[in-house]
Each structure stands twice: as C-alpha cells, then as structure tokens.
C-alpha cells in the first residue's frame, strides 16, 4: 500500500539540464537556474523528461542529481528522475539516488519496447524493493504507453513506496479516474502545463512542469489561489500563460524552455541533438514565446541606439542578449516573418525597412508613380510610410477582402505595436519607410486568422530586420537540416 507524504505537494519544476557549448553538463548554469527557481517552488525534479534524461549517460545523470542536491542543500525536496528502459538499470539508478540522499524518485513507464501492463507493473514492483519513495510517471506522448487506470490504481495501492502519480498526458478523464480510485492514498500530480489549473481545482496535489523553469512564480500563484479557493485568480493566471505553455508543451519543450531562459538572460545552452534550434521549437514560435515572456515581465526593456547615419535616436526595447545595443545600416534592412497555422491562412511577410531617401523610399515612390495601382500596391500607413505589395495576384473579391482588409489590418497592427513597444521609435517614423510584401494564399478563408497571422509575421519581421536575425551562425547551424516545405513533390 502506497502512502501520502506531507512534502509531496505544490509546484516542482522539471529542471532542464544545461550543457556547455562542447556538450558537457554545465554545472554553473545549472546552479544558477536552481537559484533562480528556488524561491518560488516546493521542490525540484532533476533529470526528468524536460531535463533530457534520455540523452544523458548514467554518470551524467548522477552528477546532475548531485549538483542539484548540493545547490538545494535541503531547502526543498529533490525528486530525481531515475527511470530507464530496463528494470535492471532503473533499479540500479534508483538505489544510487536513495544513497545519494534524494527525497524521492520520478520513474517513467518503461519506453520504446512496449511492455504489456503486467510487465510494467512488475517493473515498478522491482523499483518498490529499493525503498526510496517514488512517483509513477505517465507520459504517453514520449513513452508510448498510457497507463490504464487499473494499472495505476494497482501500483498505487499495492506498492509500499509509491507516494504519487504524475500524469503528463493532459487526459483529464484519466486524471479524474485517478481521483476516484486513489485520491488521498498517494499524491496526484499534473504534468501537463496546459491543464494545471483545472487539475488542481479538481483535486491534484501539485504540478511537475517544464514551464516552471520559466514562470515558477506564476504557477505558485495558481497553486496558492486554488488552495485558498480563489478559482477566479487561478483561472486568470492559467489563461494568461496559456499561449506560453502551449508553445512549451507542443513545441519540443526542452529547447523552448532553454531558449526562453536564454531570452531572460540565463546562460543556458541548446538541447542535445537530435533536438535542435529551429526544430520542434520553430523559428516562428521563438517570437511568440518572447512576446509572452515580455508580457509577463520576464524580459526587460533596455536602451538601444538607432544610428541613422547623420543622426542618432535613443529608444528602449524588450531586449534579449541577442539584441544589439546599437543598430545601424538603415539604408536597407531585410526581415522575414512567417506565421501559421493553418496552411491556407498562413502569413509570409518579406519586409524591407530603410530610409525614405534610400532604396526603400525611392522604390515606394517609383512603384506608386508607375505600376502601383495596376499591380494592387497600396500605401497603408504614413508613419512610417508603408507600402503593401501582394505576393500573389489578387483575382477574386474574396482575395481582395482578405488582403486589403484583413492582411493589411494585421500588418498595421504589427507596426502599431512595434511603435508602442519601442522597436519603431517615434524618432524614426518620419525617416524610414517599409515595404511589406505579403502572401495570402488564394484558398484562405478564415479572415481573423489571416489578420492575426499577418500581425505576428509583421511584428516579428520588424524585429528580425532590426536585430539582424537569423544570424550567420544560425544559418550555418541549420543549413543542412533546413526543410523547405515546397521543395518536395506531393
């Protein structure tokens, strides 16, 4: 019979594992991350799924847990991820964690080869003999095995050292079955960031989350609000971070969390291959994650100087370590924005930014004096002067409406918000002009989505043009793996 401990409740970040540029465990960065989250959490989980345990050697996993135990030094419980594919390795690593002083172990369902449920049960039964309290871990997205309620129930009720279940499936009916069967007997933790508030409200004891690396304070608020019965506050914060956590959960959580931490100024390297930048966490997600972190106050503004040749303009923008503190070269800047899904409504914006008396300004005046009207070009803004160019010839009334009303509104919103957030400071609005070459698919239907995607694409294109992204380094890192969707035949 499992049991419920006093300490297994609240918010536990599933710590990412930082690696150095030469791919070793970055102990200093790891300690910095732990110090960053510690004030807001009830415990930590080193070497979970987000911690890339499946890409680490046993020695590395041990070292990471040691560093974590040392840095935490007893202030909160440490639940070490010790799950492996085979029972033999899992037992050995869990024994090691017991001797190293971990408070408990988080043990994933054995994965890749798909053991049957009675084999899974016997796996956990072997782990139970170790004597370290452990949490059963259901994450079908990765492990490929979704516990049945009777398996989870059997393990929670039969095994003496079972103290909890972490369910990362996001499958609330499954979680409700857990409440029905084992609530009060072991702790029930939610591990899917998109459903934390409903799970806590329904009775979960806590959460182990990837996004708790980034926003441990927000999750602590949600947790406390639910404990105090203040559902309104809990709902408010869940909704406020919903987009951020959707990006994290759906887009290769480990790389997304790492890039998010880096935007916030923590010295965190990339995930290990085959997870890579611009992979599951796509380039277009980067800009959205950044905006969410800005909105939550996690990325701060910093002064930046725009050098317009003869004149300098000071502004303040939400700056990441990649943001140059002086930006020059306003003769001609190029930025590409891309936003989707869905396919039909995706937005692609080729943006040019440049001085009015330079190539961009001259091209706008020349085209409007010449073929502008015939080709459907339109000036949609005066500050900064902005030319909208349709990438695809507009043929139907529907295309016309989607392009000149909705895509144009999206582009203008992207410009307006860039003015508000400082990237297009008042001081340059009369000096620079923009050309937005905008693609709306002939089969697009959902008007608001065309608008939103073009807003996103434009806002990100403006930032990319100013910050000089993608960088040469990014291009070289991704050139071999890049996959242009239209490069292949159907």
């Amino acid at each position, binding site marked *: 019979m499992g049991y419920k401990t006093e300490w297994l409740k609240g918010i536990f970040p599933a710590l990412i594992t930082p690696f150095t540029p030469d791919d070793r465990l970055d102990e200093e960065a790891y300690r910095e991350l732990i110090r960053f989250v510690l004030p807001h959490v009830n415990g930590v989980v080193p070497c979970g799924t987000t911690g890339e345990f499946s890409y680490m050697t046993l020695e590395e996993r041990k070292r990471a847990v040691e560093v974590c135990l040392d840095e935490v030094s007893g202030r909160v419980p440490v639940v070490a991820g010790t799950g492996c594919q085979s029972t033999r390795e899992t037992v050995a690593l869990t024994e090691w964690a017991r001797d190293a002083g971990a408070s408990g172990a988080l043990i994933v369902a054995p994965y890749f080869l798909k053991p049957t449920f009675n084999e899974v049960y016997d796996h956990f039964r072997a782990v139970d003999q170790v004597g370290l309290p452990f949490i059963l871990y259901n994450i079908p997205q990765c492990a490929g095995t979704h516990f049945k309620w009777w398996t989870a129930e059997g393990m929670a009720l039969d095994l003496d050292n079972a103290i909890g279940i972490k369910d990362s499936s996001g499958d609330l009916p499954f979680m409700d079955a857990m409440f029905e069967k084992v609530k009060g007997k072991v702790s029930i933790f939610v591990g899917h960031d998109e459903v934390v508030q409903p799970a806590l409200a329904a009775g979960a004891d806590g959460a182990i989350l990837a996004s708790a690396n980034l926003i441990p304070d927000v999750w602590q608020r949600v947790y406390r609000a639910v404990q105090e019965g203040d559902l309104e506050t809990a709902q408010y914060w869940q909704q406020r971070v919903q987009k951020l956590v959707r990006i994290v959960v759906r887009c290769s959580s480990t790389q997304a969390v790492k890039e998010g931490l880096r935007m916030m100024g923590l010295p965190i390297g990339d995930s290990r291959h085959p997870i890579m930048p*611009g992979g599951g966490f*796509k*380039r*277009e997600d980067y800009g959205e994650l950044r905006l969410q972190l800005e909105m939550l106050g996690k990325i701060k503004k910093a002064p930046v100087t725009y050098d317009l040749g003869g004149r300098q303009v000071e502004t303040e923008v939400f700056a990441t370590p990649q943001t140059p503190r002086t930006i020059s*070269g306003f*003769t*001609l800047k*190029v*930025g*590409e*924005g*891309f936003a989707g899904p869905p*396919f*039909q409504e995706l937005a*692609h914006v*080729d943006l*040019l930014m*440049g001085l009015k008396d*330079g*190539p*961009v300004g*001259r*091209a*706008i005046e*020349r*085209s409007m004096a*010449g*073929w*502008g009207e015939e*080709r459907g*070009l339109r000036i949609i803004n005066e500050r900064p002067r902005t*030319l909208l*160019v349709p*990438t695809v010839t507009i043929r139907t009334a529907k295309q016309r409406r989607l392009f000149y009303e909705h895509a144009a509104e999206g582009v203008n919103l992207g410009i307006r918000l860039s003015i508000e957030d400082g990237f297009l400071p008042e001081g340059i609005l009369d000096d620079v002009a923009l*050309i937005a*070459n905008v693609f709306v698919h*002939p*089969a697009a239907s959902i008007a608001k989505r065309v608008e939103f995607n073009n807003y996103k694409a434009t806002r990100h294109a403006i930032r*990319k043009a100013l910050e*000089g992204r*993608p960088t*040469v380094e*990014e*291009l*070289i890192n*991704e*050139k071999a793996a*890049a*996959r*242009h*969707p*239209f*490069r*292949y*035949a*159907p």
Partner: protein
Amino acid sequence: MPVKLPWLKGVFPALVTPFVKKTEEIDEDAYRLLIRHTLPNVDGLVTSGTTGEFPYLTREEQRRLVVIGVEEAGGKPVIAGCGASSTQEAIALARDAKEAGASAALIVTPYFLHPSDKGVYQHFYDIATTVDLPIILYNIPQVMDRYLPRTVVEDLADLPNIVGLKDSSGDLTYTMELLEYVSDRIDIFIGHDEVVLPALAGGVSGMILASAQVYPDVWQKVFRLVAEGRLEEARALQRSVQKLSRIFCRYGGGVAVKAALKMMGLDMGRPRKPLKGVGGALIHETRAEIRLELEKLGKIPVEEAAFEYPSGLLVERFGDLEITPAGLAAHHMRVGSGVAGEGLNKVQIDLVAGGKETPLGDAYALQLTYPLHGREALTAILEPALTVRPATLLLPTLPQKNLRQANMIYGPTQSALARAIVDALEAGLPSASGGTGGVKGHIPPAAVDGEVMVALATVHPRALDRHALYQSVHAAATQALAQAFSGARGEEPGTREEE
C-alpha cells in the same frame, strides 16, 4: 459453400458524380461521357462510391446513377454503392439498386455512430438476408474512422449473398489477413490506388479505384501482366502512375479526380459543398502537380515552350535590374555565372552582388514591388523564417505562367540557391579556413550586412524533377558565387566573360 461470381474480377472505376455548376444537380450527359471514356478498358462500373460523393446524394439520385450506368455499360456489370449510416437506409438503397439493374451492391462499414462488432455484423446480415442482391463489403478506415474487423468478415463470408470485399485501407497486412481467411469464399478487391500491384501479386481478384477512370488502360495492363506473371513490366507501369495515385488517395480524393478529368477534357463540374473544387482538400499546388503527371502519362498534350538561356556578355545580363556594365564597374559590383544540369534540369544562374548603397540596393527594393509582371522576385530562404544573408533575391528570367512553373521556383530553386549561399558564407568564415581568414571565392563576412545580391535564374519551363532541379540550382549557384567572389572587389567586371 458460397459460389463465387465469375464476372467479379478485373478493373472497376469508382465513378465520380458530375454536377452542374451552381445548381449542383447531377449532370447526366457528363456522366454518360465519362462512362464511355472508361468503358473500353474496364470490366464493369461502380456508381455512387466514396469517389462518387455518395454521402451527398439522395436515394433517388443514387438510383438514377445506376439506371444510367446500366444503360451505358453495354452489358458489363454495374456495382451500386449503397452505403449508409443506418441499416434501414442501406437496405432501401440496395433494393433500389436491384430494381435499377445493378449486378451487386458495395456497402461501407456503418459510420458516424460507431456500432460494436456485433452491430456491424448485424448490419450486413440484415441487408444480405433482406435484399436478393450480391453484396461487396467495403473497408475504408480513412473516412469511416474504423476497420471492418477481420473476424466479422470471416463470419459474414459464410452468407450466400456476401460475394466480395473492397479494401481501401492501403494496409497490406490487413489485405493479406483477409486473403488468408476468406479468399476461398469471397473475392477481395483492392481499393487503394497506391498498392494495386502488390495487392494483385498477393492474390486479390481485382480493383475498384478512383484512378481507374483517369487511366483505366494502365490498370487493365497491370492486371493482365500480373496474371501472366510479367512482374517487371507491371512494376514499371505501377510506378508510372504512383504519384498521381498518391495524389488521388491522399491529397484530394474525388475532388482531385475531377480536376484531372477536367484537364483531360471531361468536365465533371465541382464537388458538392462543403467540398471545394480547389483550395480545400485539393490545394492549388497539388492541382498543378496533376497536370505535370498527366503530361508525363501522355493523357494531355505538352505545351511546348520556346525560350533561351541568357547568353552574351555576363555584364550585360542585368538590364532588368537597370544595372549596366558601366554601373557594375563604377560601383565595384561582383558578377558570376553558373550552368548545371541537362535537358529539363538545366539551370543557369547569373548573379550580381553589390553594396546596399549602390544601384543594386535600389534594384533590390524595387524588385519587391513587382515591376516585372509574371517574373516576381522572391527572397532566398533555406526554409520559411530562415532568410539568408547577405539578403538575396531570386529573379526568374522566364515568365511564370502557371503554378506548375512556380512550384519549381518556390521551394526547389529558392532553397537550393539559399543553401549555396550559406555554403559560400561558411567557407568564407575565418573558422572554416583554419582561422586565417576567408577562402578565395567565397562570401566574406563584411558582405553579410553590407551587400545584397540578386540571382537571375533560368529554369526550364517544363522542369519537373524537384530533386534534380535542386542539385542543378545548387551547382550553378555555387559556380556563380565562386566566380563573383573570386576576384578582388573592384576588379573590372567587364573583363570577365562567361565561360
């Protein structure tokens, strides 16, 4: 022991249902034309199947299609699609079909509400014991969201009226399982166009296919070749229609079949709403691909294109950008040219690079306002959101008359050019050459922010092999970049003639 029907073998097209534009009424004349087009190469017809949009047809319309089918079939058997969600309706449809002269009924697994295995068995049992018409079971999990369980088929095969099963799943492990258990009692038909040959070789009796109204001749040959054991020839034929078959199966179904027939001069109108003629399941890009494949098959004539690869002095090829030989020299721009590939895959890249402050900067900005109608420039990207540096435009030298041409530029040409640029960029970095500076002939770091490039690309208007095209563009662009960046900047470009 059930008796097999002697006629139940060979090639059967799952006919589309033609509709009149706007009213969406059935276009009977078009239907007759379609049947006459397929008839010489088929062993029978299938009306109101999935390809025929049966869920959108009324009972009366389905009956009418059978009547026309029988009138036009010249004695060949007509199999009537009688699929319905409820048993009651399926029985009614099968009764109609029998009265209208159908030789058999094709009946899908009941859908939407998901009955248990018992319910599925009872459905077919009720129909088979109520209506005196041979029944072909129909497994199509792609739209029904479930398989017809093999164990249920095993039991149904004992009923006298159950004569066959059409398997459209494309899952040959399921097909083989059926052959193992029931092929002694009923005929198995393959309904998935991509796996016809392996299924025939595995032992199915024939095929009911969407594409059997587009290229029935090909399937008839495949059927006979397999029967004669001439597998090499059969494989070559299957491969010749593999891509089109894939498009019909996965990227548009009956909608794509209607698009193909229209290109061949058989206008079957649009599908009924909510399906779109194009822009829904069948996207514009795929429709263009269908045309390419029909040309390859000889089903539609090839448009001959007269064009030339640019020749003469390289420095004189940038007139479209308003860059003259004198301008090139005066502003120390770099030029280079490369040619690679053969035949349809021959590609020429003429490239110019220069400072953003030069007239090339103006040309770059101007090209994105589309002064050259039909030859719109696009940015060189590795993939969306990975724009190369220095910023580079790809400008086709030939008008892009249709999506088929555009499909070769967007994607293959665009990303191959981008890849060549990033390769040249990497080679020009100090780290790539042992820390001593750039490699001769590659893009120096200073150009990354300071310059822009425009690549004029001449791609054969009938190019269609994206992989070969990518290789050609990459090779040609690599040559062009090497030439452009090999001399000292400011070298008199007029002295460099191509080849």
